[in-house]
């Protein structure tokens, strides 16, 4: 294929990939190290003292959630940092003056986020195999959940970067929103173990549905139904997509 649109898209993706591998010690290595620590401390030291959940060892139970955590952080961090940096350095102008339609530009950035999420997710899965063994009960659900979630957070990263007016503003959401929601999103426990009140509050956390869908893809167990999971993931992705499209259309935070 050689349509101008496709060439533009390919150019963007190539630049993203080059960047991810060039600064691999900032993009690929950190999640591998962080997650290895989780595996050692939670899975190994603490997990060995705990009873199995839904027939799986604690280590096996938390691996899918931790991989999902990696996917969320990586996709978000990739778009928020490349996009904000492009804004800060004004290199975004190179793209804005070009005839590439907005949706192609958005697709290019999102693809960068998704690729980094899959790369880091894959590395973390490999590392987890040093600690435990994994089963895959539904590969379609596994990939669909990873794919939708990484698109969703790549889009969210763009929104954050468009509104951001300083480097501080791009770390607020990851620190004060993403991390708490992920920790409380059933990565480390099944919400069926919680008192009813907290169980109900947890159901309002969208990340819970992503973690559970992903865990279902691996282990075949989930706290919530897959229909709900995919409705939540699809719904939020759609909202983010529309938000990004509207921001591009208005040129808010991008054009003078």
């Amino acid at each position, binding site marked *: 294929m050689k349509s101008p649109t496709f060439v533009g898209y390919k150019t963007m993706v190539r630049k993203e990939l080059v960047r991810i591998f060039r600064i691999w010690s900032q993009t690929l290595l950190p999640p591998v190290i962080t997650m290895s620590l989780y595996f050692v401390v939670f899975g190994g030291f603490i997990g060995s003292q705990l009873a199995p959940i839904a027939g799986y060892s604690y280590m096996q139970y938390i691996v899918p959630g931790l991989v999902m955590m990696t996917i969320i952080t990586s996709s978000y961090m990739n778009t928020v940092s490349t996009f904000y940096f492009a804004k800060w350095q004004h290199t975004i102008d190179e793209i804005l003056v070009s005839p590439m339609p907005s949706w192609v530009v958005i697709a290019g950035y999102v693809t960068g986020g998704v690729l980094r999420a899959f790369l880091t997710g894959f590395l973390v899965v490999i590392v987890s195999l040093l600690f435990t063994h994994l089963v895959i009960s539904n590969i379609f659900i596994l990939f669909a959940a990873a794919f939708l979630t990484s698109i969703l957070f790549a889009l969210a990263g763009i929104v954050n970067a468009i509104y951001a007016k300083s480097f501080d503003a791009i770390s607020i959401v990851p620190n004060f929103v993403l991390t708490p929601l992920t920790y409380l999103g059933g990565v480390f426990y099944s919400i069926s173990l919680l008192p009813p009140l907290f169980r109900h509050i947890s159901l309002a956390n969208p990340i819970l549905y992503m973690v559970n869908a992903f865990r279902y893809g691996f282990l075949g167990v989930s706290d919530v139904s897959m229909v709900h999971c995919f409705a939540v993931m699809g719904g939020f992705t759609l909202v983010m997509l529309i938000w990004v499209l509207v921001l591009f259309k208005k040129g808010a935070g991008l054009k*003078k």
Partner: protein
Amino acid sequence: MTPAIEIEGLKKKYWKGKVVTTEALKGVSLSIPKGEFFALLGPNGAGKTSLISILAGLGTKTEGTVVVNGVSIDKDPDTAKSFIGLVPQEFNFSIFEKVLDIVIDQAGYYGITKAEAMPYAKEILTALGLWEKRNDQAQTLSGGMKRRLMIARALIHKPEILLLDEPTAGVDVELRRSMWEFLKDLNEKGTTILLTTHYLEEAEQLCRRVAIINHGEIIEEGSVKELLGKLHITTVLLDTVESLTEAIMQLLRGEPLVREDENTLKLTLGPGGTMNEAFRKLSSVGVHVTNVRSMGSRLEEVFIQLIEKKDAKDATA
């Protein structure tokens, strides 16, 4: 023939919250035919960058219409953008990237593959003296080279219209001349060029047509020749026999005469002014003129005069 650029009633306001901080463009209309070499001349803050940014798709407009090669930037912005190459006022490439990559990636955004773009990239980088530097990071380039890199990047998709925002700011004299030659050549080969400058010699040397912009309004537009002719500004130097003392200058007050040195007066003649009056006055105070030297009339003076006239009018209004 459709003009390359057609601007009607263009307004641009900058907002801070709900408050308008600046009205950068107050209803600008311009028509630039294809093949033109056009200068937008104006002091700092006149609105030049605002206008260029809107044309290139980097800025939003508040009001008015902009049509590029017959394509409205409202109806089909992507097609309109495909006709334009932009050399912005500020550097806006990634300083960590290599020179050739910057140019090739830009081609990619315009739908041109690396293989297709390579021969032309080589040609323009060579013409601009950057081919030897192609594998160097952009941050290692000098200011003039960075500017030329942006010219190469703007030309990689062979645009019909080239916009340059103060292209020679911070470029040394030698390099400025060679850049002018490059642009002249480009224009002769058919590219329409619109450049902004507050550097008058540039407009005079390069451009056929000039619009003077100040405080967001076009205050004059025409060919360089017309502009000069219209205002009939002539400056002459008069060599005098008598020394031009303080006392003599007192007597000459109110005349368009300025003391240049001990024995030289500068006479500026506006539209309709004749030298006779000045001579009559001079002989009445006993000053004899031995020689008259013409200084011609320069765009510089036209420009200053226009802006002063406009500002004076604003002040009284």
